[in-house]
């Protein structure tokens, strides 16, 4: 699971709503996959990213995009690494509101809820 995916995932436990984001990430096994650097892609993705969530998930992220970030290659490479190259293979995602844990196994998060949890 890449951190960009984590940035899109939100807990859907009943009654939690927007407070289900972001999921707390606990990684026990991580792999770094080199991905072709595309500065344009990263620059355009920055505005779509929920920054606070990214800060929580990765500890090597600057406080926020600075003025003129589109041309700051060092910054873009850093973001590229964080968003696309870090792959969480094993770990858990935790709903910040309900505490419910979702396992990540072989890089795939299992977000299925049980029948009781989905009932209104």
């Amino acid at each position, binding site marked *: 699971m890449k951190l960009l995916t984590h940035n899109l*995932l939100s807990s859907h436990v009943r009654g939690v709503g*927007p407070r289900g984001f972001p999921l707390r990430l606990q990684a026990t096994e991580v792999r770094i996959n080199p991905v072709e650097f595309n500065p344009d892609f990263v620059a355009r993705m920055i505005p779509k990213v929920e920054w606070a969530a990214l800060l929580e998930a990765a500890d090597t992220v600057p406080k926020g995009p600075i003025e003129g970030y589109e041309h700051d290659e060092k910054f873009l490479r850093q973001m590229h690494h964080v968003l696309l190259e870090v792959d969480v293979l094993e770990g858990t995602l935790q709903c910040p509101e309900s505490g419910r844990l979702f396992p990540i196994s*072989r890089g*795939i*998060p299992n977000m299925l809820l049980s029948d009781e949890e*989905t009932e209104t």
Partner: protein
Amino acid sequence: MSDVQEATNQLLDVNLDENWRSIQVTGSDPRSESEHLQVTVGATVPTGFEQTAADEVREKLGSSCKISKDRGKIYFDISVESLAQVHCLRSVDNLFVVVKQFKDYQFKETKEEVLKDFEELAGKLPWSDPLKVWKINTSFKKKKTKRKKMNQSSDYYENPAIREEISTLVGDDLASCKDEKDESSKEETHPEVLKFRVTCNRAGEKHCFSSNEAARDFGGAVQDHFKWKADMTNFDVEVLLNIHDNEIVVGIALTEESLHRRNITHFGPTTLRSTLAYGMLRLCAPQPTDIIVDPMCGTGAIPIEGATEWSNCYHIAGDNNPLAVNRAANNISSLLTKSQIKEGKVSWGLPIDAVQWDICNLPLRTGSVDIIVTDMPFGKRMGSKKRNWNLYPACLQEMSRVCRPGTGRAALLTQDKKCFTKALSGMGHVWRKVHTVWVNIGGLHAAVYLLKRTPQAFVHPSEQDKERTPW
């Protein structure tokens, strides 16, 4: 025959270097008009996606297409140098070079006369140029399996040679070591006599003959003309005889296996053709950095096609079935392994991820997805029609939540058109139907619905919580 042989010898000497775009066809054959041979290529595409395929041809080759009345076929002219790029087309199942096209063929009255005409036809057709093209096509297919060291181009997926390789089945490449040995022994003892077969496809009410009869008699005449050997299974040249009402096209096949299963190594019960997946994605006109999700991905055919062709977008494959998600993850790994073999060193990641989730309750932020493309359960091999009555409205609702208002769009494939239309009818405030493509999936009449997400923000129908802030 001697012309063909001469052309063959010339072409085997051509230096096929790594930049395919600069292939020069130099024939000492005095009849060849120019070095830049122009040919008409025919392509079979998923029925219903002829226009999408034509758009891809225009975009990548600069050629305009004629869309045949014989559904699922398009024709376009190219110069032979573009042959490598033609193989990179992703909306195309099979390719052939046109020998001759008859727009309005006059069939005689009796079967005997018609078949006799076909026999006589064989010797009168302009085989020479198409055979040259076939020869070039065959020789660079052979060279391709020999080449292991690739360009260390940073623009990996843009390299046409790489893209061409990506468009073959994984099995080919993983067995390329074996192929290499076979190819070199094949080339040394290059046979004078080619093996061939004729495949006839016939459609129309008024024909007095069968496709088998036509193939047999036409094939017999081809054999006499070229002195080739007929072989149904182990052939070098496949001659195509396509008859659709009064339109006849004679061609020579350029592809062996259909390209349509190219990316998938782990099949599931209802795996979608990659060419169809490509067509559906293309309908949505993906823009750079679009988030593209398939919430019922099965084996992942759609996101994998997406990650290969639109690598400047981000793709997520999701399914509730653990078997499906695992297959999708395996297919993604196979894709990575393939890239690894090509590149030789590092493992190149791809902008794609897999998640196990429930379509009716997606763990995604509201309005975070730009494009949704999926193959919805038909209710035939997967699920049931009865289940669809509950599933479809729930799907459409949840998809409208995660899809970005205003700019978001969805391409949804289903055979259960009645159920889908009913489910959609109550959702006019969030989904607007823009286009419908009628397609044929394994004999079933299905439809791809292209929907646009309206600008209206999502409001949960049963939401009572006053504190809820739209997010």
